[in-house]
Structures are given as C-alpha cells and as structure tokens.
C-alpha cells in the first residue's frame, strides 16, 4: 500500500521510469528488504489503470522499464489526501508512519503537521482504551493495556521524529 504512495511521491518530483523508481524507493525505505521489480511494475500498472499516473514517454527498443511515467492531477490529489490524513491507530503501523513522514518531507509538505495529527489520533484511541479499562475486569484491562503499550511506542517514535524533522529533511532530500 505504501509503495503506491511512494511512487506517486517520486513522480510528483519528476517523470521517471520503473528502474529509477525502484532505486528511489530502496534508497529511502529499503531497511534490508528491497522492493521487487515485479511489485514496482504491478503497482505502476494499477496506478495507470486508476488514472493516478499516465505514460509520459516510451523510449525506443524498450522493455517495460523504458516507459516513463508522470503523475496526474488525480494522483496528486490522492497523494495529498493520504499524507494529510492520520492513520487509524492500530498495531504494526511503523512502516506506514515512517513512509508518510519521509514522503511529506521529500514532496515539500508539512511533515510536522502530519505527525501532530497522527499524535492526536493515537492519543484519542488511547483515551478510549483508558476509559474502557477503568472499572473493567482484569482480562479486559490487560487487553486494553496491550494496545495502549503499542500505541505509546508509536507515540514515542512520533515525538522523537517530530524533534528531529530538520535533520531528517536534510538527509532525505539531499
């Protein structure tokens, strides 16, 4: 899911072909798990089908990697919507939160505003869970605690990242 938005973010900067996009993705988001070419091309196919990107040029003598893509107005709208909206707080969000932060920076958007909005969404969910466990039986309280500790870990990461956005911006945009 984040691969599609990452590709939209890269294409918002400039037109690119598949090989470029894989390089750009791995440079920012690899973390020991490079994205497969197959996933890049399948994602480009879906984005093109849905009108988010279109073919900008087809260079001669080419395989599929020689197709150069550009983002459409619909694609920019979709990227902006995704980067502006906090994620529903749930487990295992770390890759998505990181991707949104980095893409907000590389596309010149306000990553701080995104992180603040995400913090608010997380804290609201934590309030619901805290209210749920107050006066609840122990099993319910422990289940709520499980979710609370995970959300708290996300929030600590959000705060840490919020405090280091300037350095991160320099690193990912150089």
């Amino acid at each position: 899911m984040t691969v599609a938005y990452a590709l939209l973010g890269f294409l918002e900067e400039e037109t690119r072909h598949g090989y470029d996009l894989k390089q750009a993705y791995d440079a920012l988001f690899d973390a020991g798990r490079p994205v497969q070419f197959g996933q890049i091309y399948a994602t480009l196919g879906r984005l093109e089908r849905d009108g988010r990107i279109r073919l900008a040029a087809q260079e001669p003598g080419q395989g599929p990697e020689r197709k150069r893509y550009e983002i459409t107005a619909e694609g920019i709208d979709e990227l902006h919507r995704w980067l502006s909206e906090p994620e529903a707080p749930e487990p295992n969000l770390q890759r998505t939160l990181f991707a949104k932060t980095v893409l907000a920076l590389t596309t010149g958007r306000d990553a701080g505003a995104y992180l603040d909005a995400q913090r608010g969404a997380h804290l609201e969910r934590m309030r619901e869970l805290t209210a749920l466990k107050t006066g609840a039986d122990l099993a319910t309280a422990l289940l709520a605690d499980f979710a609370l500790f995970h959300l708290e870990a996300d929030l600590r990461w959000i705060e840490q990242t919020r405090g280091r956005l300037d350095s991160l911006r320099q690193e990912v945009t150089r």
Partner: protein
Amino acid sequence: MNDGIIDAKGLVKDFGTTKALRGVTLTIRGGEMVAIAGPSGAGKSTLLYCLSGILQPDWGTVTFAGRRLETLGEADRAALRRREFGFVFQFGQLVSELRAVDNVALPLVIDGVRRVEATHRALDWLERLGAADVARETPDELSGGEVQRVAIARALVTGPRVVFADEPTGALDSIAGDEVMTVLTEHARAQGITLVVVTHEPRVAAYMHREIVVRDGTVASREAVR
C-alpha cells in the same frame, strides 16, 4: 467570551541564558483535565509553576478565576495556592518526619483549622483514596504508589478548585502509575476539580480530556477543547 478558570497570556520565563518559556498563551476551563506534554527540557514544569503562582513569569499574565496573579503580593499568592490549588509532585514531597495523616492534615493546620478537625478530614481523604491503612506510617515506610496516594489526599483535603500535578507517576512502575492516575482523575471528576498534569508519558496524558504539547518553550500543538 472567555470561560477559562486559568488564562495565561504571552508567558515568558528565562533562567539565566536559558529561555524556558517563549510566549505561552493558553486557556484552561473549569472542570477540565488537561495534560501538558512534551520532551524533557521543553518548559512543561516551568509552565505549570507559572500557572500555579509558584514562579512569577518575566513577562505575560496569568489570571485565575478573574484574579491576576502578578498583582497579588507573595502572602496573597501563598494563601491562594493553599486554599484554591492542590499540588502533587513526582516524588510526593511529603514531610519525612510526619506520619501520612499529619502530612495530609498539614495544609489545613497551616490555614488555621483545629488539629482534631484537620486530622479527621485527613483520615477521611486517606480512606477515600484507599490509603487508610498507612495513615500512621511515615513516608519512608511507604511504597511509591502509597506516597502518591498520600500526596493526592494532601492536595485534595483543602477542597481546591485546581490540582496541579508534575509528573505524578514519573517515579512509579506502570501498575502503580495506573492506580495513581485512576484515583486522581476519579476524584477530580467527582469534585469538579480542574486538573493540570505535566507528563512526558502518553499513557498518563490519555487519562486527560485534552493535551497541550510544549516544545522549546512554546505551545507546539493543542487539541480542541471538548
């Protein structure tokens, strides 16, 4: 129209070359429970102390229920703190030579309440907070959670309108921290007390109605009043 019980405008506070607060403006409404959150050194505790009249800001104003704190003399501010505000600190800050019940009774005794009456009210609050069985023990005989229950009883015994708490669970494990936050918020809610809690822990902030985030001495983000 402004229905804040506490209004702060443009608070600035320096400690030597360190700019602790750089122009903080906020409103807290009566009965609200508000977390002041943010990283270490952001100015959270300084803000709490300025809001509660413990520290005087270098610039800016704090108004409590229509009274400008900076216009009051030190004696009047001390009386205001004693009668209208309650305080809970990270390590309880109980008087080590006094038994728990005498610690709780202390603000009443200082304010002229007869000792028998003060002790009676202190015992009542210790019982409400589930700490009656430690009433006759001194602070060094208590666990961290018990110390904070006694500190909360001491903060509530005068019937304050606002309780200020600075990292009230900072010295506790998460189970004791949950218990302390539960009793603190339950009793604040039941008494209609405004609660202002400084914390760097999201799990503590989640007990509050809303959060004000302080970074580098300014309000970095704030949630809407509910």
